[in-house]
């Protein structure tokens, strides 16, 4: 195939996935949360079980006035949503859904480091929003975001390093290629640490201290309205897709499944990602928010030691089996 056409097609597919998957997760969240709380959720928009609710929400957001507070730092305030959203698009580009060259947007040599580095950049958007809003609640939200990122980036990186050690490569397709089923019990602690730390980095409940709507009124996003606010929400859901996809690729074997013919590996990847996304929503409904000091303690005294123990275990097993 023509090179330019190939690149354009890959970018287009990733972009469509980037727009569609977060919306699917959002709509699933509406319905799953509702049923877990003994209610129906949106039922009217679009006719069948309210399937068009998010489209209606999008239209509503687009119609709202785009307000910038008088005391705000105008340019940074307006730039922040883009800084929060774009990194997830870049990360999605590097996540392989199936075996071979054709099933990844762009194979990156040091894929694990690429995705973790770029995901960390997304948090700068929240910090910029928190500071530029000229609002004390936003500032508190920004502070909590920064503290949380610093606490949870480390266990996430250590857990990912453990699986990279096991596979002997830092490329994402390479890691899935090397996957064996017994990696699951071997790396289970690392998987849990990675997933929990990722939830905290996305500021999803029970780690949503930085946005805690009942305390600091959505933190860094307090002053945002209309489309810019919608972009922040979209970033959160894109973050869920990226985190679940990464956990699938790193720890759950991506396209490997107990059965299934060749060529259907991408179904396994999407299935595992969807199950993890369901767990993310489930946690939101069932767990109360951690307090800020509990949140810091949880990371530094539990997740970091667990991740280090996992790395030690990985190293020992790796030496023994060689």
């Amino acid at each position, binding site marked *: 195939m023509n090179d330019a056409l190939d690149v354009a097609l890959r970018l287009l597919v990733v972009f469509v996935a980037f727009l569609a998957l977060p919306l699917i997760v959002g709509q699933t969240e509406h319905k799953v949360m509702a049923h877990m709380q003994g209610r129906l959720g949106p039922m009217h928009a679009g006719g069948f079980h309210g399937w068009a609710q998010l489209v209606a929400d999008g239209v509503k957001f687009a119609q709202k006035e785009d307000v910038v507070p008088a005391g705000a730092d105008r340019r*940074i305030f307006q730039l922040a949503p883009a800084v929060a959203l774009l990194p997830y698009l870049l990360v999605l580009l590097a996540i392989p859904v199936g075996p071979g060259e054709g099933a990844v947007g762009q194979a*990156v040599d040091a894929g694990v480091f690429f995705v973790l580095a770029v995901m*960390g950049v997304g948090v700068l958007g929240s910090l910029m929003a*928190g500071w530029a809003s000229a609002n004390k609640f936003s500032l508190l939200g920004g502070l*909590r975001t920064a503290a949380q990122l*610093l606490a949870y980036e480390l266990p996430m990186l250590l857990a990912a390093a453990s699986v990279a050690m096991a596979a002997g490569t830092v490329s994402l397709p390479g890691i899935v290629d090397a996957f064996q089923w017994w990696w699951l019990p071997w790396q289970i602690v690392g998987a849990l640490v990675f997933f929990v730390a990722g939830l905290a980095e996305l500021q999803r409940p029970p780690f949503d201290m930085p946005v805690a709507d009942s*305390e600091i009124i959505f933190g860094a996003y307090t002053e945002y309205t209309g489309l810019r606010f919608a972009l922040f929400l979209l970033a959160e859901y894109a973050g869920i897709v990226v985190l679940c996809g990464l956990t699938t690729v790193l720890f759950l074997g991506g396209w490997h499944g107990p059965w299934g013919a060749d060529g259907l590996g991408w179904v396994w990847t999407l299935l595992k990602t969807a199950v993890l996304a369901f767990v993310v929503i489930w946690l939101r409904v069932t767990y109360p928010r951690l307090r800020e000091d509990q949140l810091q303690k949880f990371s530094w005294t539990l997740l970091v030691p667990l991740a280090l123990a996992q790395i030690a275990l990985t190293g020992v097993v790796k030496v023994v089996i060689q």
Partner: protein
Amino acid sequence: MTPAATAVLLAAQAQTHTHVQVQAQAPAQGFLSPTGVEIAFLLVGVVTFGAAVVTVTTRQLVHAALWLVVALGGLAVEYLLLTAEFIAWVQVLIYVGSVVVLLLFGLMLTKAPIGRSPDADSGNRRAALAVAVASAAALVWVVVDAFRTTWIDLDGAVAGAEGARGSTQVTGEALFRNWVLPFEALSVLLLAALVGAIVLSRRTSPGSDRPTPASDRRPPSQEGAR
């Protein structure tokens, strides 16, 4: 590792290997027929330099931190253009993802104002400028002296490893075969810094007879959580 240290390391490595490369280098390349990558390298370099200058000259504190993001990101792009992918992502991970976040955290804790900070100028400007110029001159001199007109083919495979000259595998092998001792020395240095930081943060204040428990020394932002 700081970019400066990386440059010195690279230069030192180049000096030890230059005679090998001279034999293996590609046919002479002119400096007057630049390739696309070279043009991009120069342009990104100009942007990085500009962002760095704005970082130290702007009077808005948080803007300085954000321009620092641009400068550090530009440096990462330069590493990428030199095919050193691993170094580039680590640069983003450590500097943009952690160091700048820490800076912004500090600025927010001290309530950096929106708009100009008239007291942002330091009396040490001249001394700082002198130190900056001296260290820049030293770095440029070392790098220029080490490489001279050596032409390094970045895409060419290195013996015993696949991939370009800056790929993860090549970097890892160089680091853990030839440079293990400096690597370990650096880790001891970092450990010492870590212990020092803990000692400083738990220091007994004069007047109280026992160390202040860590739980009472939370930043103000976290008080509201209780």
